[in-house]
């Protein structure tokens, strides 16, 4: 009971939701005495060893450091969009060419009790653009491993706030590329439910098993937070949906490894009944996401190659939205595809190219005011060049510090339904093309 209260206390004290991704945690490096590169092939992407570190509950020991498992990070950036955003990119910001201190996060990352196999990744984030301080990705887990019949069984349970935040591969939504995006650039409106709709606005529990480092299965239930609890945790509940009954998350993956290669193939998904806008009396919107994904990594001594791809198919029956006049179709579907390839040298220099595509049924009710042809369709390319000088250890005075300098370009082929004049005001998809320069600092 005490342990439970301690865990809940930690989660609350961490007061942490915007879905800004966290990266390599210096506190993990301090705990294990290992470099970021041991667990990360360019953070936050995990190496096979990093996957085991996570599956085993973040408790692997090592270093003799007594510094608490607390880390911090800050992101500063410059954003240029091909066309200015009239009225400003955000309150207090100009229409274009914005320099910004975007966000700062505090983390608890590491073992809570190595003996009990309890560890955590708890992030809280101050988003300087929105001015909100909220909880962010949170994963508190208990894990254990046994050898049964000459095979390793690693299993555990997790209390977390984002379906797929617990996953071990970087092809599922919570930890996939791009790992950092501008908070001052427009992005397409439509995504599937599992792509962040419940991130930080829900709480859930999952149970998982990683068998023989080959087969991974996980299942969990999530429920949205009440408006009061959302507000307490810093998440703006305005316009939010609520789940009606628990949302079911599942994950199944197989990852053969040979030599320096690893290749994962899997499926994941989320099914939920929701009250849109938390309005009862009109039935529920029922959504099922089914994803397939794959990841290939080749990790050589001084360079690496990494590929990820996923395709999520979403099917919705919009009883409530339809009855309320907010959707024109009773049934809608959306599919979301992502693929990216990256090469890195010495875990210091990396080049990444990704492509995404969202395709869905046109719905005048759902996409009215967003897309002139009522379509959610978008696709584009995202390229990035990164320089991470301290992946093998930071400066002598604080060797756990890490910094990344990133140059990213978002190139839209289609945006919210069209290439040309998608909003009826003559705006083309290319108007949103974004040049994003950022520094990410963790210590």
């Amino acid at each position, binding site marked *: 009971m005490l342990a439970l209260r301690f865990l809940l206390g930690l989660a609350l004290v961490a007061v942490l939701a915007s879905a800004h991704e966290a990266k390599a945690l210096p506190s993990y490096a301090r705990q294990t005495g290992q470099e970021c590169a041991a667990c990360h092939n360019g953070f936050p992407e995990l190496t096979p060893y990093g996957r085991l570190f996570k599956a085993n509950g973040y408790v692997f*020991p090592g*270093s*003799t450091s007594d510094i608490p498992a607390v880390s911090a990070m800050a992101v500063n950036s410059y954003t240029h969009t091909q066309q200015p955003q009239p009225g400003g990119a955000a309150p207090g910001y100009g229409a274009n060419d914005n320099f910004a201190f975007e966000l700062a996060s505090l983390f608890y990352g590491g073992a809570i009790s190595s003996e009990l196999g309890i560890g955590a990744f708890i992030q809280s984030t101050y988003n300087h653009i929105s001015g909100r301080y909220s909880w962010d990705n949170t994963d508190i887990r208990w894990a254990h491993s046994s*050898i049964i019949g000459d095979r390793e069984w690693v299993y555990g349970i997790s209390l977390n706030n984002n379906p797929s935040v617990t996953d071990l591969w970087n092809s599922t939504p919570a930890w996939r590329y791009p790992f950092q995006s501008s908070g001052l650039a427009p992005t397409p409106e439509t995504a599937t439910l599992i792509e962040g709709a419940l991130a930080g606005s829900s709480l859930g529990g999952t149970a998982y098993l990683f068998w023989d480092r080959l087969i991974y299965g996980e299942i969990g239930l999530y429920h949205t937070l009440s408006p009061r609890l959302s507000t307490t945790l810093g998440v703006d509940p305005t316009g939010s949906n609520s789940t009606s009954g628990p949302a079911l998350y599942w994950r199944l993956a197989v990852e053969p490894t040979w*030599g*320096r290669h690893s290749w994962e193939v899997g499926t994941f998904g989320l099914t939920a009944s929701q009250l849109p806008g938390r309005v009862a009396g009109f039935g529920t919107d029922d959504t099922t996401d089914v994803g397939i994904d794959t990841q290939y990594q080749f990790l050589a001594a001084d360079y690496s190659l990494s590929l990820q791809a996923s395709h999520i198919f979403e099917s919705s029956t919009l009883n409530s939205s339809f009855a309320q006049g907010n959707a024109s179709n009773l049934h809608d579907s959306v599919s979301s595809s992502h693929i990216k390839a990256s090469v890195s040298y010495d875990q210091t220099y990396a080049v990444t190219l990704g492509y995404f595509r969202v395709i869905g049924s046109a719905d005048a009710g759902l996409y009215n005011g967003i897309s002139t042809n009522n379509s959610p369709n978008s696709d584009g390319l995202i390229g990035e060049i990164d320089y991470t000088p301290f992946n093998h250890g930071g400066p002598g005075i604080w060797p756990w510090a890490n910094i990344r300098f990133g140059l990213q370009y978002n190139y839209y082929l289609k945006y919210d339904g069209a290439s040309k004049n998608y909003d009826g005001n003559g705006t083309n998809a290319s108007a949103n093309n974004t040049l994003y320069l950022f520094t990410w600092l963790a210590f």
Partner: protein
Amino acid sequence: MSTFPIPAVLAVALCLAACESQRADVAQHQDIEGYVHLCSSCHGVTGHSVSPTFPILAAQQADYLEAQLHAFRDHSRADPHAHTYMWGMAAHLDDAAITKLAAYFSAQPASRGEPVDDKTAATAKSIFIDGIESRNVPACVACHGEKAEGQGAFPRLAGQHRAYLADQLRLFRSNARANETMHDNALNLTEPEIDALAAYLSSL
């Protein structure tokens, strides 16, 4: 939804947790069970690693393993992977744990690597047995044993990952892995000779 067997899943997980871990059977020594689990993340439970980034420890000479763990702990072995992975891993090991871990992995059965073609084997075998006198490359067999099984502080090379062996020779040559003797031995080896030796020794 209410019929979904989450309680059953949790019950199974908790039952598994409550079960006495059988890793002790593998580890032989209850008190290094946790360390063996940790080592196994990269080296495999029985010391047979999958990735050549990490050496195979099974059947390795206990004295050699012990010396390396001490060298990781006191940072005298400082090649890049030692720094990335092993400094942290070894930091908490006391002398007794090091001795037990070395004994555990050295007691695991050996394995053979991939076969090698005859021409490569002939080139490598000649260096292994006779050395290259004109370039002051001594015969490997003198220290590493007739079957490259190692002896004492001299490591077993037979069956090791080919890429790992080649990497180590290059690290010795560049002095990134500091070892005066092996630095001198590797200094005058050509790239093809290093590759041939690694392939041959791995196949043994």
